[in-house]
């Protein structure tokens, strides 16, 4: 089971955080600090896995952004790596050639995509089409609502 997912920049700035198990605020802050220092300190050509307490941390860098996913000890590390990759693919498909800025300025969208992909710490939907379809469905709804709302009432 996945425990948390963090996205942070090369400068250690947090871009997205998702906690799948309840955690106290202080604990979260400590984890974010630990993760950024640990991951940023990794040498190139090291493996993408880390140990943190009794959890496995799997991280991967995409351009200027680090994706960092913590899973239970008995989980499969390679699979977790692919979870990250699939998430990036989904972002890419939604934003079209995604970059860090898309995630900064539309972070709520990134959260929504994540919510359609993972739920309660497990993979919810592995089919790419499905995830995007449900995101688009809600986007469409929103847009029609907004159009409707913003039309001047004659």
């Amino acid at each position, binding site marked *: 089971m996945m425990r948390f997912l963090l996205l942070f920049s090369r400068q250690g700035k947090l871009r997205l955080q998702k906690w799948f198990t*309840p955690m106290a605020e202080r604990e979260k802050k400590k984890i974010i600090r630990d993760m950024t220092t640990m991951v940023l300190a990794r040498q190139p050509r090291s493996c993408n896995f880390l140990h943190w307490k009794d959890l496995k941390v799997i991280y991967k860098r995409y351009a200027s952004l680090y994706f960092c996913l913590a899973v239970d000890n008995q989980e499969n590390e390679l699979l977790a790596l*692919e979870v990250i990759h699939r998430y990036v693919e989904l972002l890419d498909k939604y934003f079209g050639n995604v970059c860090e*800025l898309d995630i900064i300025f539309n972070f709520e969208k990134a959260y929504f995509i994540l*919510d359609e992909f993972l739920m309660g710490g*497990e993979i919810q*939907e*592995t089919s790419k089409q*499905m995830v995007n379809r449900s995101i688009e469905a809600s986007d469409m709804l929103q847009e029609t609502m*907004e159009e409707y709302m913003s039309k001047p009432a004659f």
Partner: protein
Amino acid sequence: MSDVVEKTLTALPSLLSLDSQPGSAKLSSTSKLGNLVRGITELTSKHEEEKLIQRELASIKEQVSSPNTSMRQMKELMVRAIYCEMLGYEASFSYIHAIKLAQQGTALEKRVGYLAVSLFLNESHELLLLLVNTVLKDLQSTNLIEVCMALTVVSQMFPKDMIPAILPLVEEKLNHQKEIIRRKAVLALYKFYLIAPNQVQHIHNKFRKALCDKDPGVMTASLHIYLQMIQENPEGYKDLTASFVTILKQVVGGKLPMDFNYHSVPAPWLQIQLLRILSALGKNDQSTSEIMYDVLDESLRRAEMNHNITYAILYECVKCIYTIHPKSDLLEKAAKCIGNFVLSPKINLKYLGLKALTYVVQQDPKLALQHQMTIIECLDHPDLIIKRETLELLFRITNAQNVTVIVEKMLDFLRVSTDDYTTIDLVGKVAELAEKYAPDNEWFIETMNTVFSVGGDMMQPDIPNSFLKLLSEGFDSVEEDRKLRLFAVDSYVSLLQGEPGKLPQRFLQVISWVLGEYSHLRAELQPSTVMRLLSKLLDTKNTSSETKTWVLMTMTKLCEGAAGVSVAQEVSEAYSSSLDTVLRQRAQELQHLSQDSELRARVVPRDAGLEPLEVDSSLSFLDGFVSEALAAGAAPYKPPHQRQEELAQAKALSLEPYGLSLPISISSCSIADRQSPTLLSMSSGLSGDSTDLSHKGGSTTLKLDGVKRVWGKEGYLAQREPVEETAQVEVPSPFRSPSQQAEADSSHSQTPTPVPTPEPTQERQQLASSLFVGLSSQSSVCLMGKSESAPQRFKRKAKSPSSSSGASEQISNSLVSAPSTVDNLLCDNLLDANISSELAVSSPTQTSRLSQSLTTANGTCDVELTNTKGSNPSLIRDISVAVAADSTPHEDPDKPKDLCLSSHLPAELSGFSHSEITPLCSNQSLDLSACHVQQKDSLVLVVFIYNSSYSDIQQILLELDSDDLEVSGVCGSPVQEVGSQSVAVCQYSLSVKRPSVHVEVGGMVSYQLPVGTPQSAQFSYRLPLTSFIRPLTLSTEEYGTMWLAFSHDTKQNLTLINAGHESLAATLNVLKKKLQLHIVEIIGLEGIVACRLLQDQPCLMHCRVHAGTLAVWLRSPVPDLPDCLMYYCQRALQEH
């Protein structure tokens, strides 16, 4: 940073251009976030950022609280608030508005509201209660998107005790026509299953429906629940194996829609989930495993593409193949696969390869041999993570010959590691290896010295404990003991002469204890010299007061002769006025004892620490003092939690419904009994500052929960505590001898056969041969049948066998050929590849359990215990096979037997009602049945042993054990023999240790027929918690005071039995009848009920009729008891 800004500007032309368009609220708001982000990136210092954010927050705060802000603006404000929180600034003022947004917004606004809530609030946040209603409403919405959002947030965070409120609605969604809703509902239920398994017990068959869903997504989601349930109870789901295999076959064969493919691999997540389920099902089960061989083979074959995801599947496949009942050609393929991992140039794959090797190496040590050069490369890898994983592997293959090299490597790693968690883990492992395989005294003590100094004060406390235990108990040879202790003393004295200030506190404590006990062994060492060395420690600033206490105790043991006494006097004077009371007490003791050498000899006799002390845990010798004090007007003792609660009650407003019912009950009381003096105490109790509780309970004894035992009949105990603990933990270990033998063999069968590799350096070759010595498979030839035994160091002294050891001896005998292999596995001794792979039939549990217990770094005792348990399944299988073959002649109807068994019920129990007599287990010669008898204050388990053979059975030994229950024998002497065709009866009294809905007693019977080998059989007996529940007769006043004192509670609405205005009474009567509760009083629409769990664990119930349901509130001092009782109340009312 500047290029980021540039990018920002270029990436947002659309936003910026749209921003200028007036009237578009959405876009201008987005650019407000844009402005904020841009503003932050332009800043140079943290301080400026802080100022900017504070300004931003202030403006957000102002806007959210303004009544004119529309929901749409609110959405935008929330996004900004989330951003600020993400940067680490608190925006708690916005939490309530987030909830409001989720409640009132339209679809997307709602969504942002839910998102904000899930990011801001934590599962225990009180505002979350406000969300329950919104979720309820959205779950019932006709808008699919709203339903989706509600389900998402429910699985993200939902207060546990609110689950019943929404459960029916979520359940309903399992039948929804849209697959996305069904899928989310399944996952939400999975989440509920994880946090509150009891709540979803009743919908298990609905999960089956989800598993058969026509949509693959819903089916995949249901597998999460199945994996969880199967791991908990594989037996219950064996029938599904074929279905899982079929699904996997279809997935592997590419029968799923294309869009489930990931990098042209069909549904890899689904495949892996299925593989995990299969390995849980096939573990230790040959027939189930056979069903899956084909599909595993196919999975291996199909996963050939060179991509991470196929490797992930392969890894899972390999794990599965090594977990289930082995099949040789599959194992071969899996081994080849591991080779691909290990030899891969990709570092991630190498890591997984090491992990896989670690997993399989106990069953197949040859694999480690094959890859020894790679392992050595990894050991020198610059990446610490790889190194760490390699050490884990080496730890698994350690034996008496390679221990020094491996431990050396581990200690090297420890010296550079900075991670506390890794340090604690590794230190435990080193200590374990050292204890198990130490080649000589010097090495052992030195290794432990390093362990103590590196591990510092973080390490598990059981490491120093078991080390001291080892020293104090000694081994078989007295001479060896003496040498070891002497060496320890020497090494510690020289450490103290160096720079003791740098040593960790735990180490100093160990040192001072050892010096106190054994420094007299070194004749030329004057006690006063040791005392001077120790007193230096007292003067060091860093020494903690706990360590100082240890030092003072040591001095008490050592203060002999004029020089010693003078040091003692000096020290005790310095500390007899210390502010630390413990320290002061020790100083006083030291002072007095150093002056009175006769008394000292009696209090701290030399070499007399091994007899277990009897501790009077009830402190009965203080009873006189207590009653005197009570008579003199002292307040009775109250445990701290109670005091605290009362304090809290006194301070805070009481929001509990009791406050409401108070006036009614008081008035009704005062009408009934105007003069009642208890009335006052009741009302004061309810207002929260009562001081008279303990005598209400009806007992005058002290409550001892959480009180440390410091005094025994003979006085102060603390010095002896370690020893006493030792005596309790000690487990006799008859199991050791075969392993000892195995090790002895390995030591003289040195046939290291390093596999030649192209151009390994000489150094590496050497390292390889020293690391992998003893692993070669040839040594197995001489394993069986050899009986010479080289002394194994640090083998625990075998104590006189108690009853339990007798039993385990019998098991090991009856296993005829297995014990040596079991031990072989157990001791990590990988000598014999052949046998271990044969044994793999039944050993995976053992190995995996073993690996767990090894990693937890417990002492050897633990491992042995695991072994005893682990070896049972294979026994049982033998026996059950025998039963199956033999069952026909035994098929005589159960009923008559039952009748005749009940006539064997002991006379003293016949007056009480007993449960149905259920068979426990049976084989050719023995039939075991049991029932339980409910007495007023106890529950007796009666086991009937019926000898169905025509010869007497001897040496019957019945052992019961339970996690949840306390089991104690009732009869004086246990049954030894049962004559042919007759019945023997054993009685056990049971009491609850830890309540759960069903409690279970496991047991084992072992016996000996006149001819043939000893036999044994295992059984378990399950009984509901209700059999332990008895009515508790209380007065309303007593109830009132007790209610406040209890800390564990649960609330739920139950169905009310409809009987006009008598419905409350009718409902309570049903509960009374079915669950043996005592109805204390019914006042109007409220009722109070009490019961207890056998003698002394009360549980109180408060019911109120509210809106056609019965609001029940249970409270008890015992954790989990309210939950279990709630379950039974619910059942009782449903059945009615």
